[in-house]
């Protein structure tokens, strides 16, 4: 009888990720729970879905990263635990859980404990505002982008907390590096996102995605990346996001050949695993934001692919971005701290600032042929000047070698 009163809401493949939320809401309504409880239950289920999806993605990525790097290095990678090493994350987890948790005597134990927990929280919060599919926006916040950046900045605090609380020198050096790096690279990251806000006219991330929905000539998607200012901003955002996620070649805070493991040196066992997790979730968040801002979020890349559930497109694009991070990690050496800073302040930030007038002109001139004619030189000429400067001053000198005749 009661089933008839609360019909189960219909859902499609598109809204599959909503299923836990709908299920919880339906169950709560079934037992006659008050409205506020239903809404809280639904939100909790939604949050649980996001956390669950990204935690499994983290486990998968930890395996995929090792396999990919292994292939780049002509190795096989983990292949003993389960089929193709699929159980390796489980084995890693068990190992991490059973390891001794060491707290150095000189450490401030409370901060030492709090830091790894605090590093996970902002990443999950940031993932909460991401439009993961057309119907899958965990929290559709009006100031989503602002929320993302402000929450993302919290990571620095926990990194510094870890470095300070360890009471050791390598973590301290690592934390100092992390602070200077993250603060410097947050600037180009945010500035390059400003153009998108100007063009879209909204800080709501789902609006930004919807805005990129159309196609030029019926087959080139109208993603922000395929505009002159968007291309420049996307490139800057990409580079800055690598630095923000502490990935190679900008992995100075944990540069293992110099300062052992940076702020994580004095951590072991599950606390270390939490740092690892926080880092990977942060990676998902920053790469996801890049996808949302420049790669059309959950939009299909070609018009006839519209039947595929949109959240698949989001995750596919995310996978592409993350694979490119892995590829870079397998190839590049690490930069030095002063070079890192110089690159951010002398190259990235000026170029990022240029994308703002470019985006403004793009909107002002009506996003047509004229806009291309106007914005391309605006971005290209400074780039050429920068390149010439790089060749003259910053580029390392070319060398000649001689052979002794004797």
């Amino acid at each position, binding site marked *: 009888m009661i089933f008839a009163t609360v019909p189960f809401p219909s859902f499609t493949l598109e809204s599959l990720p909503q299923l836990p939320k709908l299920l919880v809401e339906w169950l709560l309504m079934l037992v006659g729970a008050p409205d506020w409880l239903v809404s809280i239950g639904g939100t909790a289920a939604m949050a649980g879905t996001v956390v669950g999806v990204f935690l499994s993605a983290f486990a998968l990525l930890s395996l995929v990263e090792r396999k*990919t790097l292994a*292939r*780049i*290095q*002509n*190795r*096989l990678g983990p292949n003993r635990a389960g089929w193709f090493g699929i159980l390796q994350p489980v084995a890693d987890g068990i190992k991490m859980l059973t390891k001794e948790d060491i707290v150095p005597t000189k450490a401030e134990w409370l901060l030492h404990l709090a830091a790894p927990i605090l590093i996970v929280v902002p990443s999950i919060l940031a993932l909460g505002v991401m439009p993961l599919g057309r119907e899958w926006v965990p929290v559709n916040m009006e100031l989503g982008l602002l929320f993302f950046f402000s929450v993302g900045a919290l990571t620095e605090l926990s990194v510094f907390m870890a470095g300070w609380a360890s009471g050791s020198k390598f973590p301290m050096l690592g934390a100092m590096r992390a602070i200077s790096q993250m603060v410097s690279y947050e600037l180009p990251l945010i500035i390059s996102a400003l153009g998108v806000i100007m063009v879209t006219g909204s800080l709501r991330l789902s609006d930004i995605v919807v805005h990129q929905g159309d196609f030029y000539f019926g087959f080139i998607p109208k993603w922000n990346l395929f505009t002159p200012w968007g291309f420049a901003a996307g490139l800057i955002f990409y580079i800055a996001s690598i630095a923000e996620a502490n990935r190679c070649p900008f992995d100075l805070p944990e540069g293992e050949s110099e300062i052992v493991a940076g702020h994580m040196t004095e951590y072991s066992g599950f606390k270390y695993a939490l740092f690892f997790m926080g880092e990977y979730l942060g990676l998902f968040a920053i790469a996801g934001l890049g996808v949302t801002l420049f790669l059309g979020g959950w939009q299909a890349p070609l018009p006839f692919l519209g039947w595929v559930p949109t959240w698949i497109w989001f995750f596919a694009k995310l996978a592409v971005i993350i694979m490119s991070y892995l*590829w*870079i990690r*397998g*190839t*590049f050496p690490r930069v030095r701290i002063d070079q890192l800073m110089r690159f951010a302040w002398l190259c990235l930030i000026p170029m990022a600032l240029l994308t703002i007038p470019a985006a403004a002109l793009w909107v002002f001139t009506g996003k047509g042929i004229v806009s291309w004619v106007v914005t391309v030189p605006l971005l290209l000429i400074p780039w050429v000047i920068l*390149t*010439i400067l*790089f*060749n003259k001053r910053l*580029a390392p000198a*070319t*060398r*000649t*070698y*001689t*052979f*002794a*005749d*004797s």
Partner: protein
Amino acid sequence: MSAEKTIDRLPAVPKPGRWIMPGLGLIQGLVISGKNAIQSYYKKDRMTTIQYPEQRAVISPNFRNFPFLCYDDDAATGLRCTACSICENECPPQCIYIVLDRDENGKSLKRPKVFDIDISVCMNCGICAEVCPFDSIYMDGEYEMSTDDRFGGLMLGLDRLAKSAEYHMKLRPEEASAVMAKRKAEEEKKAAAAAAKAAKAKADLEAKAKAAAEAKAAEEAQAATEEKGESA
């Protein structure tokens, strides 16, 4: 320094004075690492990893690991080792320990009573095999020697060291057959020498007997003549 020739920069590096785009070298690196990643799926010389317990690398017969003692027919009596202690003295890390076997009278039996090699000390140099004048000690190719017994398991005694000549033949046919030929030749030589010695001894004996017989005959003759003389 004498006159020097200036060479061009290497092909991978842009020539001096040429305008380069920043980041070109990075892209070049990415191309190479990407090529390696993709080719590792189908090119044998890219992916050289061997899945050890299931697959095994072809190990050169010349590979040496720990020494073994060679015996000819029977492990107890056929050991070639004469406990001369040359290897014990030459062993750089001093990991060989030999006790000569003696009978109840204290006479050397020319074989080891104890022959221990501590393979936790042994550094696989092969000098023992090189200096052995009796073709007794050789380097083994066996490499799966790990054990959970730190002390007993790594101290190889005669029971684990002694291996047959056939094993050696299987391990390194060339070396072993050369050694066998040499030993055979030596044995033949020895046998020939022994035969010659025996023949000589026999001849000696015969000669002695003959001499004795002659002497006896002479004696007898003398006695006879004496008898004759006496009788006459």
